[in-house]
């Protein structure tokens, strides 16, 4: 509670953000998709669909990467 009262946004690190760091990948993926697709598409009306697709691809890639690393760790654990 005291940490929350002393918290100054933008000056101090986000209170409570420590435990939910993985959720911070979501805005990162969304904003990278927005900027990248804003460069690529030629018509503004295409942007929402293209951004949604790129964002979902990011998330699926993150999940596949996490699953792949998990399997790799299981293999390493069994081999030692």
């Amino acid at each position, binding site marked *: 509670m005291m940490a929350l009262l002393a918290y100054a946004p933008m000056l*101090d690190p*986000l209170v409570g953000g420590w435990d939910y760091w993985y959720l911070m990948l979501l805005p990162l993926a969304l904003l990278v998709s927005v900027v990248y697709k*804003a460069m690529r598409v030629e018509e503004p009306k295409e942007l929402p669909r293209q951004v949604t697709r790129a964002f979902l691809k990011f998330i699926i890639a993150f999940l596949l990467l996490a699953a792949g690393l998990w399997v790799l760790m299981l293999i390493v654990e069994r081999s030692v």
Partner: protein
Amino acid sequence: MESGESKVSPVIVAIASIILPGMGYLLLGQKWRAFFAGGGIITLFLLGIFFAGIRVINLPGYQDGYLSYVEARRVGEMVHLVPTTQPIVEVREAGRDLAGRAQYAIKRKVPGGVREEITTERPMGHRWVMLYSPMSVLGGNLWFLGQILTGPICLVAGYLSNLAAQAGVAKSYARLADIGALYTAVAGMLNLLVIIDATSRASGKAVRR
């Protein structure tokens, strides 16, 4: 003006894009592209600061908000190199100590004034770390190479970071610091792509997709 030759010089577009993310597109009349590309980059940069605090931006050559120097001192036959944020402004001889060693009275510049000290280590001079060893300073602060690509907003954030450090605001560490550094550096690298894209559109060389 979505395709073909632009009336604005690519050099002007590149400079505008460096000054403010997305401003190059604005000069080309592509307002929606400027809004989403520039706005996205600035939002990413500000979110990085929101997550990790302003001190996630570390200007190279500064330590805790003050200019960092390397100071050379002679101790017997040895020369010691010592990091300091308090540069020497005046040195004078101050007699000898009980062991017969020469003493020196040194005046150092400190926040809000001058501090005097007596030492037997003869000061030989000091240099700003960025002039003494720029590559090692940058090597210890690699995220900055990505962050600076956002342009002057990174320098403004760095200046505010120095003020916060001088006021005693603590740095973030571990995960939050990594996430904040990642956001701000990715914003800079995306801005590099935006600069290249806006410049090639200005020269009429935009890749058809």
